[in-house]
């Protein structure tokens, strides 16, 4: 029964609803912005590199934030070492990763010669 009810409802509404095609209904919804161009743009690969690095640090922030809130209490309760060292280790891992990515040129912005006009930066 649980499956049948929504199916009948969808079918019923499909049958009885009016069909009014209109330009505005088919437009891309961009949170209120007026869309320009079509959706099939090729992003520059370097955009993803930066985005990935961003995500990493985004998550880092999310983790550090609650940690800072309880930091003082944690130090008094467990001592400095147990409160601070794990976070330092965590950040240390990220730093190693960032340093490596940096040294390998992940953040070096190179303008692509091959596909002019197709960057979305």
């Amino acid at each position, binding site marked *: 029964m649980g499956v049948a009810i929504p199916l009948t409802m969808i079918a019923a509404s499909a049958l009885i609803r009016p069909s009014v095609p209109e330009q505005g209904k088919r437009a891309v919804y961009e949170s209120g912005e007026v869309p320009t161009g079509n959706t099939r743009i090729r992003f520059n690969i370097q955009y993803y590199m930066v985005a990935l690095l961003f995500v990493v640090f985004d998550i880092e922030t999310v983790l550090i934030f609650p940690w800072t809130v309880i930091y003082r209490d944690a130090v008094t309760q467990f001592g400095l070492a147990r409160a601070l060292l794990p976070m330092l280790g965590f950040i240390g*891992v990220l730093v*190693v990763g960032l340093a*490596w990515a*940096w*040294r*390998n*040129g992940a953040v070096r912005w190179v303008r692509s010669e091959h596909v002019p006009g197709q960057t979305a930066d």
Partner: protein
Amino acid sequence: MMPLQAPISPDWLALTPAIVLGVFAMVLFLLDSIDPDESNDGLLAGVATVGTASAMVVAGVFLLSGVGAGEGVSVFNGQLVVDGMALFFTFIFTSVAALICLASIEYLAGTDDIAGYYSLVVLATTGMTVMAAANSLATVFVSLELLSLPSYGLVAYLKNDRGSVEAGMKYFLIGALSSAVFAYGISLVYGVTGSLLLPDIASALAGGETLANLGGLLGVGVLMLVGGFAFKTASVPFHFWAPEAYEGAPAPVSAFLSSASKAAGFVIAFRVFTVAFPIETVAGTIDWVLAFQILAVVTMTLGNFAAATQENVKRMLAYSSVGHAGYVLIGLAALTGQGSGEIVLGAGMIHLLVYGFMNTGAFLFVAMAEYWEVGRTFEDYNGLATKAPVACVAMTVFMFSLAGLPIGGGFLSKYYLFAGAVGAGVWWLAGVAAINSALSLFYYSRVVKAMWLEEPNGNLGGIDTRGYPTGLYSAVMIAAVATVLLLPALGVFSDVAFEAANAVLRLGP
């Protein structure tokens, strides 16, 4: 949950193998950061090999010194548990990874970003190690991803090779789908039981009340978890990525994925199903033993039949690897409550151990053939023994051991599996497996026949011009010796495996 007396103190030291691996991954990054353009191949390979090998030694020492005995060491409030099974599988993963690192030196010569390769291998191994110890669906998922993400990168590692990139892409897409299914399954299970910790899930289900009310939901969740594991273990119907990923990926990576990564999928499946969903409790709602029986039969049959029709050796190995996943699934499919569960489960573990060596060795031999540029099909291997007899002996050992002839450990581990299945009253499963084994002998022996009995096609010049790749060659030899030695020495490991299986099974109900 806490053991009476911790065999190691402080608790987290039990995670040493994982920590060692993590640290070595960092070291690799740091080394490469010093001068990314001028990487020292030998040094990087050496560091990676030393790292994985030392993790292996630590795991072995822990295993033999009884660190994980009994219920094991519970870490981080039960999120991770280091017990016999975790250490046993850690040993498998790290030994395979060490072989891979050793074997990759020559294979990768001339490619970019070698440090990235090794650090991905080491990171993936770290993920597996954590997976082996994961005791909560959350850690299961996180470690699964820690394994998966590097794997995608590794498959696509040969950036200028279309096959490699395509395989990586497919692997990634299917992986994303499976992860989604898996995560959904986790959320359903959490919704029903209110816990992510495996033992807590079991106790939530124990009363029977939850099952009566929300059984359907749990069933869907459990089947979705099955799907997630089926992806990692390359079992039907989640196996589609496997042949293409194994064929496209660099051969050492194929070896890594088909041996270690598969074993990682199994360890997690073993633990989740035996600990969180004891079959006695959930049989009425979701008979996962039956599900695994179906998967096992379909997987081994499909894998072996497909392997029999291949012309490409690497692809044949890929399908045979699917077939072997089917055999190991017996480890779960025969937990019928009849007979001795620890034999069945332990047999699965042992088979994965032996498989780790023989399958890795076989893929590495393919890597060597690729290095010599002899080609990929059976015909291309014709007469290889005239030029490289010792390596061909090793390959023969792998092939026959994979087929289950008593020349390597593969014979015994299969024997355990079949005997376990018969003991559990599912003799038909053993029968299907035996038929499949017999069939597999034919396509394995095709390789042997090509190497030893056929006349060379004149494509073996690469052996003379390129010589023997030292690292690769020694890795193949180590794997061959290990495969053969595991026949008489399996006793050492089988005791450990049966004990570990027993411990896991006792945790459940």
